[in-house]
């Protein structure tokens, strides 16, 4: 864009700040037991406060309440969204961004506050304003602007019942990304980060290739039988360069470990516990410890390992408490 175009664009988008996305509107459905039950069913929420009338009647609430996280649901437009979404002020603003090349859309944050619990029969109305536009900012997705909308929810007595701030990033997708730019509120990186793989060279490729096939091997000196890990080209005991391997049963115990909190690297799940595992065969192996609360991991804990796929590209041995 030329400097003139930039100022024209800036003027256009800033004019939206403070505008309402239509007048306050009443939700299509009042708070009701059926929608609550449908929601709880899908979310797997067994909280009796939402679905068990007897329990709810006996509780301090004296009756059923709706899950707080349904707040936004009472304002949803429903089926028309998949036919011809209405062009409201918010949609217009997105169109302005898109006409200047900011075609990427990414929902980045929501902050929802719940002032009171809603009960069947409550009538929820909502009112959204475009509260702020922050940018331009260089983001991981490309140059972009954050649009912040604020929706206030009120009840039949005009009393506020909640408030939601929604942040959406509109960005200029990098060229290779153009096809992936539009639409979805949550369209994140398609090329997902994976764990950093070990480079494979003459001395270690065979070991990693076995892991790819689900097996953990331990190098063994053909001459004196000494096991060694990590693999190396010569036996430190007898200096033989002839070797084969045995397969580990992956029975072991934790010799030491750490729970890694920071920094966090893309492609790794956190909290991440990594241990030095004393294998039954006598050698040690560094590997992940999973399947229990990190605070339960301790030195001496008996573990059993298996090779698992941990991301799209990576197979690794992981150890579970016995």
């Amino acid at each position: 864009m030329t400097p003139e175009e930039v100022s024209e664009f800036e003027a256009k988008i800033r004019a939206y700040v403070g505008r309402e996305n239509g007048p306050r509107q009443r939700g299509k459905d009042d708070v009701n037991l059926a929608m609550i039950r449908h929601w709880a069913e899908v979310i797997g929420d067994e909280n009796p406060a939402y679905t068990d009338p007897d329990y709810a009647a006996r509780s301090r609430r004296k009756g059923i309440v709706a899950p707080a996280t349904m707040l936004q649901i009472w304002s949803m437009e429903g089926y028309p969204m998949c036919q011809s979404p209405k062009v409201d002020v918010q949609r217009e603003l997105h169109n302005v961004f898109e006409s200047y090349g900011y075609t990427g859309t990414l929902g980045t944050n929501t902050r929802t506050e719940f002032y009171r619990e809603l009960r069947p029969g409550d009538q929820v109305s909502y009112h959204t304003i475009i509260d702020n536009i922050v940018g331009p900012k260089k983001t991981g997705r490309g140059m972009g602007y954050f649009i912040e909308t604020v929706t206030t929810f009120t009840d039949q007595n005009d009393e506020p019942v909640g408030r939601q701030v929604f942040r959406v990033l509109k960005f200029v997708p990098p060229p290779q990304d153009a096809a992936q730019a539009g639409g979805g509120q949550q369209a994140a990186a398609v090329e997902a980060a994976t764990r950093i793989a070990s480079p494979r060279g003459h001395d270690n490729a065979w070991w990693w290739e076995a892991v790819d096939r689900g097996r953990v091997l331990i190098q063994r000196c053909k001459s004196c039988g000494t096991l060694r890990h990590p693999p190396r080209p010569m036996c430190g005991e007898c200096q033989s360069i002839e070797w084969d391997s045995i397969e580990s049963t992956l029975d072991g115990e934790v010799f030491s470990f750490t729970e890694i909190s920071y920094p966090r690297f893309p492609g790794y799940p956190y909290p991440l516990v990594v241990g030095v595992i004393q294998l039954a065969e006598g050698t040690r192996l560094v590997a992940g410890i999973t399947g229990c609360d990190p605070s339960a991991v301790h030195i001496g804990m008996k573990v059993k390992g298996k090779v698992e796929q941990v991301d799209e590209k990576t197979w690794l041995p992981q150890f579970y408490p016995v």
Partner: protein
Amino acid sequence: MERNISDRAAIVGIGSTEFSKDSGRSELSLAAEAVKAALDDAGLEPSDVDGMVTFTIDQNEEVDVARAVGCNDLTFYSRVPYGGGAATGCVLQAAMAVATGIADTVVVYRALNGRSGHRYSKGVSGDLITGSAIHYGWYMPFGLLTPASWVATFTQRYMHITGCTVDAFFEVAHSARMYAVNNPAAFFYQRPFDRAEYDAGKKICSPLKIYDCCQESDGGSAVIVTTPERARDLKQPGVLIRGVAQCSAKDQEEMTSFYRPEIGCLPEMDIAAKKAYAQCGLSAADIDAAVIYDAFSPIVLWQLESWGFCKPGEAKDFVADGALRIDGRLPTNTHGGQLSEAYIHGVNGIVEAVRQVRGTSVNQPRKTINHALVTSGVGVPTGGAILGRMG
């Protein structure tokens, strides 16, 4: 006479740049400034320099530093591997060169943009098929990527076998910070912390929290090594290199020696300590103050044991009595350490140990410092040096 380099070389000049989080200039500029400052301190000219030693990981070529500073012909140059483990190894190289007559005046330097440039906390990655990448390949896929994660794994084991608790880590970190509070050159000048803040610190890798981890800094430090004879004619009182040693112990890996019978200890430092003491006939009882490499607070404890200030496993009790503080048995890291002054890979520590012996530390202990110990980074092949007053 027994072959020995004890008392055959002396440190006669020290210099550092400002320490910061964003120097805004090249590493070469930091190196040149630190070297020039050390030469000025000694009262030497750039043309007096005929040797240079630095770390293999230092990005400043010796020839570039020499040209920048205006040195003359160099007849000795050498590098020491293994990150912070190189610090006193560079002094060993310089001392050997001077003792053997290979060079007369050797500069040891280290300069880095450790915060604004390449940050070690960002971990290793697997871009190249080198021996080092193959080695880190045993750890990277599992997420063991950073120095903190490796040291934490040793620390967990150390706590298990010794019963040491975070109380001792706090004492190490806190005593260093209290020194930094008085040191205008320190990043944490006038910024104390208390136990509640320490306990609330961000979790890094269990059991390490943020206050247990050194900073990342931009800056440079240098020292000048020459013969004791020449030292007597120079501006500053010379500081003798009484003993200096390096060691890579059996079954060493770079930061990940997880395969030894026991890993909550530092066999390489135990051996280096014995050798350094043997060179000069001194023992722990003769050491009055120290600069102990503190990339992470627990590693100070292990080194106190290696150098014989207490028995193995008893460092927690040693520090609990305030031994590291200014009026304690062994005032340690009086500049604030790498935890609280700056992380110049231990070379700022060599500078401070020289100051301790000269009597010019900003936190100078009240007693006479006849001998100061300075050590290198651990987890890697490492070592240490014993510095002393010239008779």
